[in-house]
C-alpha cells in the first residue's frame, strides 16, 4: 500500500514542478477599454485572457494575426508591448443563494461592503439557452401585485414580458413593485408544502448610481432584499461591464432554474445595454448597421432572453422569468431596439406618458399591452373576475371618443361608459404597494357584479380602500377561502354577496 502512495506522491510532486505550456501574445494597441493583441495563436472565442497585474480581458474578435479583446477592468498599468496569455477559461460568475440580499457588480464581486460572498457554484456568463426538449409550457403565474397587469396582462413563470415606455412613465416602478410582491408572497408562505418561492434579480445597466441606490433603499424598506440580488453596472462602469451585466444576471437566475427554484430577472434597461454593446463593437471596429448598432444586436438580445425558460422535472424543474425594460424616445416603438425586443419577448406592457400625466398610474396602455402566454398562467379566481375587463375597457375607449360629441346617449352606451370609467379608476394604484390576489379578486368581483355602479366615479378609490379595509378586518375568512381554493365557487359567491351587502349598507 505504502509503495502505491509513495508513487502517487512522487507523481504529484513531479506534476507540480513540471513545465507549464501557455499561449502568449503581445499588446500592440490599447485604449478605450479595448486591446489589440498580436500572437495568441491558440486563443478561443470568448476566452478569458490574462493581463499582467491580475487584469482579465475577453477575446471577442479573432482576426488574422491579431486578436481584439475587451478589458474587464481598469486598463491603467497595461502598456503597449506587455505579454498576455490565454487561460483556457470562460468568464464565470459566482451563483447561489449566498448572493441573495447582496449588491454585486458584473463579475459577481460584492459592492455593498457586506463582506465576501459564499457561492454555491460558478456559472459561465455566456451559456446556450435550454433547448426544446428540456422545456415545459408556462402555466404558473407570477403575481406582480399590480391589478391592471394581473387582471389583463398576466405574466407566467418562464415568460419574457417587456416593459416599454418613455422616460419617467413608471417602468422601473412596475419591476420594483413586482419584486416587492414576490418577497411579500415568499414571506407569507415560507415553509408551506408545495409552495415555490420566486427569487428576484435586478440588473441595473447604465443606470445612475443614485437610481440604483434609490431602488435598493425601496427594496430594503419593503423587506424584499432577503429574496433579491442586485447586479449593478451603473453609467460610470465600463461599457464592457454594462454589456456583460445582464448575462451575469441570467447566469445567477439559471442556477435557481437548475436547482428546482423559480427566478425573476429584471433587465433595467436593455436600451442602454444595446448602447454599451454598440460602443464595444465600434471600438472593436466591427461594421455598423442601422443607427450604428452592429449587425448582431438582435442576436445579443435574443440569446439573452431565450435563457428565460421553464424547464421540466428532468432538467432542473425551475424557471427564469424575464422582465426586460426598454426606454423609447417620444413614444417611438418603431425604432430599432424597441422593435427587436418586442419581437423577441412574449408580450409587452406599454406605458404611456399621456396616461401618466392624466393621473392614471400605472400608466398601462390597455390597447397596446399584451401577454402572449396569456390566461394559461392566470389564477382561476382572477380569470373568473377579469375575463371580460379587457374587452369592456376597449369598448369604453371607443365609445368615450364618440361620447365627447353628444350628450344624448342610450342606456346601454351610458352603462358601458360608466363601467369603463370605474374600471379605469379602480386600476389606479400607488407605487410600492402591491395587492394580494384575493384582495384583487374581491375588488374586481364587486365591480363586475354591479356593487360599484351607484358609487360616483370620484368616490371609487375611496370605496375600494374602505372595501379592502373591511375585508381585511372583518371578513378575513372569505379572503383566506379565496386564497386557498384559488377559484370562486358558489360557496364563496354567497359569502361575497353577503359581505358586500353588509358593507354597502354601512358605506357612506
Amino acid at each position, binding site marked *: 500500500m505504502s509503495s502505491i502512495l509513495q508513487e502517487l506522491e512522487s507523481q504529484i510532486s513531479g506534476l507540480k514542478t513540471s513545465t507549464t505550456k501557455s499561449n502568449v501574445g503581445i499588446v500592440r494597441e490599447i485604449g478605450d477599454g479595448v486591446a489589440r493583441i498580436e500572437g495568441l495563436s491558440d486563443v478561443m472565442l470568448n476566452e478569458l485572457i490574462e493581463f499582467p497585474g491580475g487584469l482579465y480581458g475577453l477575446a471577442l474578435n479573432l482576426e488574422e494575426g491579431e486578436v481584439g479583446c475587451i478589458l474587464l477592468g481598469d486598463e491603467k498599468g497595461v502598456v503597449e508591448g506587455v505579454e498576455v*496569455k490565454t487561460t483556457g477559461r470562460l468568464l464565470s460568475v459566482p451563483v447561489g443563494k449566498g448572493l441573495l440580499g447582496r449588491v454585486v457588480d458584473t463579475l459577481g464581486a460584492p459592492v455593498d461592503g457586506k463582506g465576501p460572498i459564499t457561492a454555491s457554484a460558478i456559472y459561465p456568463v455566456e451559456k446556450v439557452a435550454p433547448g426544446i426538449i428540456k422545456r415545459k409550457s408556462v402555466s404558473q403565474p407570477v403575481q406582480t401585485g399590480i391589478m391592471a397587469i394581473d387582471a389583463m396582462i398576466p405574466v407566467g413563470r418562464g415568460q419574457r414580458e417587456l416593459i416599454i415606455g418613455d422616460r419617467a412613465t413608471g417602468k422601473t416602478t412596475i419591476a420594483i413593485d413586482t419584486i416587492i410582491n414576490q418577497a411579500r408572497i415568499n414571506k407569507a408562505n415560507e415553509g408551506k408544502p408545495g409552495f415555490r418561492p420566486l427569487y428576484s434579480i435586478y440588473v441595473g445597466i447604465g443606470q445612475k448610481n443614485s437610481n440604483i441606490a434609490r431602488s435598493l433603499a425601496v427594496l430594503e424598506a419593503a423587506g424584499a432584499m432577503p429574496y433579491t440580488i442586485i447586479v449593478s453596472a451603473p453609467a460610470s462602469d465600463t461599457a464592457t461591464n454594462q454589456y456583460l451585466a445582464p448575462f451575469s444576471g441570467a447566469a445567477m437566475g439559471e442556477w435557481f432554474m437548475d436547482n428546482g427554484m423559480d427566478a425573476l430577472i429584471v433587465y433595467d434597461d436593455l436600451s442602454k445595454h444595446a448602447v454599451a454593446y454598440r460602443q464595444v463593437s465600434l471600438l472593436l471596429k466591427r461594421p455598423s448597421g442601422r443607427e450604428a448598432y452592429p449587425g448582431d444586436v438582435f442576436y445579443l438580445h435574443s440569446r439573452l432572453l431565450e435563457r428565460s425558460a421553464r424547464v421540466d422535472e428532468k432538467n432542473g424543474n425551475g424557471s427564469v422569468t424575464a422582465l426586460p425594460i426598454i426606454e423609447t424616445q417620444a413614444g417611438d416603438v418603431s425604432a430599432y431596439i424597441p422593435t427587436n425586443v418586442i419581437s423577441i419577448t412574449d408580450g409587452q406592457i406599454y406605458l404611456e406618458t399621456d396616461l401618466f400625466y392624466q393621473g392614471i398610474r400605472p400608466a398601462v396602455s390597455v390597447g397596446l399591452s399584451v401577454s402572449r402566454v396569456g390566461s394559461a398562467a392566470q389564477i382561476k379566481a382572477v380569470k373568473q373576475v377579469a375575463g371580460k375587463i379587457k374587452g369592456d375597457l376597449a369598448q369604453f375607449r371607443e365609445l368615450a371618443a364618440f361620447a365627447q360629441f353628444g350628450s344624448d346617449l342610450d342606456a346601454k352606451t351610458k352603462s358601458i361608459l360608466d363601467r369603463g370609467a370605474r374600471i379605469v379608476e379602480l386600476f389606479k394604484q400607488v407605487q410600492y404597494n402591491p395587492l394580494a390576489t384575493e384582495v384583487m379578486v374581491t375588488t374586481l368581483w364587486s365591480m363586475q357584479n354591479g356593487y360599484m355602479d351607484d358609487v360616483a366615479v370620484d368616490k371609487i378609490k375611496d370605496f375600494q380602500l374602505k372595501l379592502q379595509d373591511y375585508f381585511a378586518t372583518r371578513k378575513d375568512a372569505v379572503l383566506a377561502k379565496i386564497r386557498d381554493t384559488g377559484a370562486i365557487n358558489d360557496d364563496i359567491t354567497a359569502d361575497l354577496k353577503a359581505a358586500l351587502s353588509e358593507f354597502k349598507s354601512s358605506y357612506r
Partner: protein
Amino acid sequence: MKLDKDARKLTKGLFQLSLTNGRLDQKKVSAVVGKVIASKPRSFVGILKEYQRLVRLEVGKHHAVVESATPLDKQAGDHLLANLRAKYGNDLTIEFKTTPELLGGLRIKIGSDVFDSSVRERLARLETQLTHA
C-alpha cells in the same frame, strides 16, 4: 497608418508569393521587397511595413528564444535544440538569453507558445493560488 483593404490584400498576396512549400524563402523575400521598392505602388511604405510584420510573425514561429537565469552549457543547449527540433521541425533556429530575474529554470518561447519552468513563474502561480483561492 491604416492600410486600406486593397493594400492589405496585396500584402497578403506578396506574402504568399514569398513562400516555398509553406516556408519562408529568403531569396523570394528579398526579390519581393526589391520589386515593391522599384515599382512604388500606392502606399508602398505601409505595404512594406505590413509585409515586414507578417514575415516577422512567420519567422517567430520557427525561432525559439531560450531564457535561463545563468548561461546554459553547450551540452544542455544542444540537447534542448535536438528535442525542440523533434517537436517543431528541423529548420527551427534557437537563441539563448540570460535573464537573472527568472531566478532559476528555463523559459522557452516559440511563436506564441511559451514553456515556462522558471522559479519566477512558479512563485507567481503560488501567489495567485494563495491570494485568489
